[in-house]
């Protein structure tokens, strides 16, 4: 089956789907038709381009890559070396960035976003702002700030995680950068060797996983408050280090109904959670 594009019943959002990729796009009404046409045209070949370099994208040390999305992925993970990470950690975000960039080429586009399963890239003309809902509440990002991407990672999600975070949401300069950072922060939220955490080699669950034999989390038993806090501390330290290097704007980490915010002062103050 090839790439499919369908307008959702609200008549506003466009759903793009191909193989494992599901994208929901929104563009402001004035430039919508043109932006969606550009997105659809670009999306038609994205999956094939990725598949062509898939073997290299799954390596922690890939040679220089050719495809536009592949290069976005490679760029997004490069700053984190020598920590283990492959370009695949940024695939969802990089696809969102690529499709957003296609939409942004439409003259007169004021505001748009591309949501790839929770990893979101957005376009803001000067003076515009956007609100993101995340586990810790909501954040509003204005066009003055350098952030154009939000991504979420955690062991309960669709990709495997080495850590135990329920969710780590990161705001960064692009969705690909946010995606890579969220993956690594979620890996860091951990209690190594804790008996309540079950792990399995990644390849046992997904034979062609880029994580190889690394143990990924498959279940998390009851944890005490102290243990949950200790795991979140590790993740928060990793996030703070990334923020100090300018790799991310902010991060929200959650585990067992606890949340930890890193760098929230860089954004608007989140509202309290109602969950």
């Amino acid at each position, binding site marked *: *089956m090839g790439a499919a594009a*369908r*307008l*959702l*019943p*609200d008549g506003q959002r466009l*759903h793009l*789907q*191909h*193989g*494992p990729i*599901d994208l*929901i796009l*929104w563009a402001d009404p004035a430039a919508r038709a043109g932006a969606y046409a550009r997105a659809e045209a670009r999306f038609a070949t994205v*999956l*094939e381009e990725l*598949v062509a370099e*898939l073997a290299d994208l799954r390596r922690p040390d890939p040679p220089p890559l050719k495809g536009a999305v592949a290069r976005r992925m490679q760029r997004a993970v490069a700053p984190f070396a020598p920590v283990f990470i492959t370009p695949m950690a940024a695939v969802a975000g990089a696809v969102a960035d690529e499709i957003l960039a296609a939409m942004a080429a439409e003259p007169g586009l004021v505001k748009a*976003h591309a*949501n790839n*399963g*929770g990893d*979101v890239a957005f376009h803001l003309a000067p003076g515009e702002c*956007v*609100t*993101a*809902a*995340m*586990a810790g509440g*909501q954040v509003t990002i204005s066009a003055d700030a350098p952030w154009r991407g939000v991504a979420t990672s955690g062991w*309960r*999600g*669709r990709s495997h995680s080495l850590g135990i975070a*329920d*969710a780590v949401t990161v705001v960064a300069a692009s969705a690909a950068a946010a995606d890579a950072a969220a993956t690594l922060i979620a890996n860091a939220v951990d209690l190594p060797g804790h008996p309540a955490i079950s792990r399995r080699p990644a390849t*046992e*669950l*997904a*034979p*062609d996983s880029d994580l190889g034999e690394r143990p990924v989390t498959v279940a998390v038993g009851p944890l005490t408050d102290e243990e949950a806090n200790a795991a979140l501390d590790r993740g928060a330290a990793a996030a703070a280090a990334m923020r100090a290097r300018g790799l991310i704007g902010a991060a929200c980490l959650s585990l067992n109904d606890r949340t930890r915010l890193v760098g929230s002062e860089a954004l608007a103050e989140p509202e309290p959670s109602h*969950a």
Partner: protein
Amino acid sequence: MTDQAHDNRADTGDGLPPPGPRVRAEKIRCDACPVMCYIAEGKAGACDRYANEGGRIVRCDPITILDRRIAAGDEVRPFLNQDWDGGLIADRDLFVTAVGAGTTYPDYKPAPFIVSREIEGVDFVTVVTEAIYSYCGVKVKIDTDRHLGAEGSVVRAEGEAVGLVITSEYGSQMLSLGGVDHLTGGSKAEGRVTCDTLMNLCNREAVELSIDGGATVVVQAGRAPVVDGKQEERMRVGCGSATIGMFAVQWQGLVDEVVVVDDHITGVVSEHQAGKVLDWPDTGIRIKGRRSTPGRYFQVANPGLGWGGTDIADPLTILGDWRPEKGARPGLSLLMVSTTGEHAAYYELDDDLKPVEKPFPERLRPSVELIGENCEPALCTVMFTGGAGGSLRAGVTKNPVRLTRSVHGLKTRVTCGGAPAWVWPGGGITLMVDVTRMPANSFGYVPTPALVAPLEFTLRREDYRALGGHDAAVRSLADILAKGGEYGGELRAVAPVAPLPPEEER
């Protein structure tokens, strides 16, 4: 517990399905999309849409959410509880179905999901579980007049008896398939084939059925039936008599006599009440069947696959000699037509008062086309029928009979994958649901054999507490969407086909 006790259990969900034979772990390539994932036994590919089940690539269904904002036929994965730039999605727009929810056995445990939703200021609870139906089957309605088999004939799939032909309906042949006798009362092969047949029909796949002493028919829910290799196009407009009643006036002045050939009631316009009120002159025609009332004849031929559900290839065979004393004369014109307009022929009487076929006149073509136009497309309808009044009720309440009473008291709405279920009056919770209204691939099976189908009970929170519900196990919609359940947290969203409970269909 003996094996026999196991297989003869008396209630839905009373038997834990025996674990299937250990299958050799096998990794296979999926070719559903260009990624070509290598998938381990029991796991899903990168898309979560396809999985390796026993060395076979199958579609897999994570917990299915009905989302009113999604277009029919569309599907979004993973589903997100938050809308970008729009905050949380309102409870009323979403409904957690039991498709992919899993089951709890034994059922004294609360059902896999007990979901609270606030709808216009009122707290509702939906109890969500996949039910194991030992007692279940399908009623199949096949829109055709063609003779599929005598009432009571055995219906077979792959040579095994899976059900029988039951009393027909207006324009449709009816089958009743499955049931506990075929599932567990016969041989192992019969049970396995019956279970496969039911599951495939319920999942809207095409199934070939052969009827003892009758036809072979390919049945697929929502599609036209294929009878002995020929696809049925139209359902008859009515019986032969009804066709005369509907169209007599269209023929007046254009032709001297019209016979509508039908296996049930063949109609003759000059004798029929509809002709009488138009002062239609007698023609001296004679029909060979058994006369019921004027202009209406039973049993003009045997049932079959020819004209109007009879075995007739040449319609003249149902006519006797024409009587000149009653109006027969050389040159008298005659239209013979079937109840679908699919067959039509034009004749004129020669000097010996024998009908001779003539080129079909243009003046009569509109009337035949009008019959065709008034026929509805022939479809197969598959109604899943099952009994949900067994032990699964204990997953809802500590006091199971109160659930049954609440369902019959219309305080609890019953849905299957979000599709409204019709519940039979009387004892138990015996329900029927149109499988085409449920999400794709809603049905599974256990090797018992028995079908697994989604089931949801929706009621007010206060009523749920009053019937002894597992109130402590109630979780918010947001929490379920964020964390999933015991069997995983993969979510997909599809469009509902009916109003989301507690809203009701009008």
